[in-house]
């Protein structure tokens, strides 16, 4: 649905994006990951036509994106873009009407959303009286109120406590279920695993990793397995081809984490174990996106960056 081809953006003295291409399929959630200053926000701004790329193009449904298309995107900027002195309800009504809803419909939808986020009693509060996370809730509502097909969230989770972050995550998944295509940038790696279908990891203006989330985690697999067996001992011998990382005695028996040699298969491991123990659980531990992130983004670079 949304596609960027070789987008390059140069700022005075530094390259913000160096030939970035991403492809967001319709009806999916696409994550833009990367350390601070990697160029995620720049890319999002280029998609929104807020800034123009030096070269490269942004396509929507195969055609270059126009200002008219942008008016149908729901965009949640990283900074809180709300009138500080305006009341929450008035503001939501105003923005909803600007996005083309009539006042009756706007009021109805805002009512539904305010209830969902449990902020109905904020209607007459001024925005400046709200905390950052509270403002973010209001802003999120105004972004999705007109039910756009394409949604772009820049750091949607910043400023949220864990409870509200879960609430927000569920709402984003709900939007996807309803058919929206979502592009989001985030630091919150836990949410990436649960939310995103595909990701691009941007570091130092370049895409360093791109693809489906499950596939990427598979690619960075460490051949680590979690095994539960009955009994009170776990037998090993030197030529087993795996190392025990952790061993815990539990009421049912023993739980171990083992690291098998590279390129071995789980089949070999199970065959070996099944002869010695009664296995009650066997599971491969895939790396979290956080592990992948840290592994891919060169730690030395990160340090020199900060």
């Amino acid at each position, binding site marked *: 649905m949304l596609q960027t081809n070789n987008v390059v953006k140069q700022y005075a003295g530094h390259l913000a994006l160096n030939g970035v291409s991403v492809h967001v399929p319709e009806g999916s959630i696409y994550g833009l990951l990367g350390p601070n200053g990697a160029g995620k926000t720049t890319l999002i*701004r280029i998609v*929104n036509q*807020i*800034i123009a790329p030096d070269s490269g193009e942004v396509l929507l449904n195969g055609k270059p994106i126009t*200002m008219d298309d*942008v*008016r149908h*995107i*729901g*965009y949640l*900027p990283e*900074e*809180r*873009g*709300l*009138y*500080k*002195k*305006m009341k929450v309800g008035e503001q939501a009504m*105003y*923005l909803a*009407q*600007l*996005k*083309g809803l*009539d*006042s009756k419909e706007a009021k109805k939808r805002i009512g539904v959303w305010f209830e969902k986020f449990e902020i109905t009693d904020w209607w007459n509060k001024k925005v400046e009286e709200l905390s950052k996370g509270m403002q973010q809730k209001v*802003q999120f509502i*105004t*972004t999705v109120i007109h039910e756009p097909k394409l949604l772009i969230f820049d750091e949607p989770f910043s400023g949220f406590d864990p409870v509200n972050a879960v609430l927000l995550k569920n709402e984003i998944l709900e939007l996807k279920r309803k058919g929206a295509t979502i592009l989001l940038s985030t630091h919150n790696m836990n949410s990436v695993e649960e939310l995103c279908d595909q990701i691009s990891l941007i570091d130092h203006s370049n895409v360093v990793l791109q693809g489906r989330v499950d596939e990427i985690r598979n690619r960075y697999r460490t051949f680590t397995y979690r095994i539960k067996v009955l009994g009170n001992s776990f037998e090993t011998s030197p030529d087993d081809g795996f190392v025990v990382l952790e061993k815990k005695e539990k009421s049912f028996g023993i739980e171990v984490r083992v690291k098998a040699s590279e390129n071995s298969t789980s089949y070999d491991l199970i065959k070996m174990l099944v002869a010695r123990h009664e296995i009650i659980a066997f599971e491969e531990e895939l790396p979290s996106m956080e592990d992948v992130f840290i592994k891919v983004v060169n730690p030395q670079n990160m340090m020199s960056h900060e």
Partner: protein
Amino acid sequence: MSKISLIIRKEYLRRVNKKSFLIFTFLTPILIACLVAVPLLLSTIKDSDAKKIGVVDATGKYVNLLKSNESYNFVPFSGDMSKYKNNEESEYYAFLVIDGDLLLRPDKITLFADKQVTTDLKGYISDQLNKALSNEKLASYNIPNLKEIIKESEIKLDIRTVKWSDDGKDKAGSAELATAIGLISTVMIYMFIFLYGAMVMRGVMEEKTSRIVEVLVSSVKPIELMMGKIIGIALVGLTQFLLWVIFSGGLFFVIGLIFGLNKMPDTTAIQGMNPAMQQMPNSEVADMMKMLGGFNFGEILFYFVLYFLGGYLLYASLFAAVGSAVDSETDTQQFMLPITIPIIFALYAGMYSAQNPDGPLAFWCSLIPFTSPIVMMVRLPFDVPLWQKILSLSLLILTFIGTTRLAAKIYRTGILMYGKKVSYKELWKWLKY
């Protein structure tokens, strides 16, 4: 509802509902009325006690000529006045010593006092004595009826200016009053343009720095955003102006009523004394009313609103462009200068034109669109030919369409530009996009 009218409504309601707007709107006329009323009020307050003045008259001719009034009490005094010298407890405010015939030696009169005597007292004394002295002098010529002859020869000129209006009727006019009305409206337009222009600029900057525009430009066109704000604030200005007209009109009416009542006993006192004098103030008031009636206030108000709108639209779009180009208020200075100079120049040109409303400076400045809204106000009470008004207004409208388009170009680019110190060269580039 269309998007631009939504923006206009929001900008308007947001400002009109503010407490500061209400306070400013209602306090300003009260403040102005106070500025007028307080000196008036203070001038009516007199010292409570009459000052006692001892008169040492060696000739004995003058002491009875000095009539006491509510401020001064003249009493004959004989004896040693030196014991009152530097005496805090002294009941005498001053001593008047006359030691010679004032007709022959006019300098034989002296006032002694511990403090500097007021000019009011000096004036009062010489008033009283002058009259008597000149009568005495006239009598000394021994010409019969001389007094009456001289009185008859004193003619008080009262020049009324009458302007022939187009319909042939005479209208009473007053150059002073016209100048005053012109100057007041000039200063008001100047104030309005600055006040509301700056309001537009701050509004644009607020949206830019808080990144609201990033959300807004995804739903509305930048030009709609800019024009919505400018028009919304123009309506705020008109509302304020209308409220001022109504409110100050009412306030002056009330004050006039109060002062009119206060003056009543004074006029009746005069009435008792001198029937001829009583006629005077009334006819002056009537003249004043006639002169005020001579101005076509409806027309002046009409043009005031037109020129306010024209001048405001012209400058507000420029203010909006400046607001969009900078990141913070401190950066506005360099771009404000080219905008403020013509406005300030116009104010001075207007003040200067007040003395010669049909001179070349007034003429040209009331046609040039950057100064015309301010300068034309001075000329309006002096009946400007219709073709000049039409020409000046058309030029103004054409120019504000031009500046609005230029400003929109700068605005479109500037509003989304961050963290860059913008130069004039940069602005020029934006214009050509």
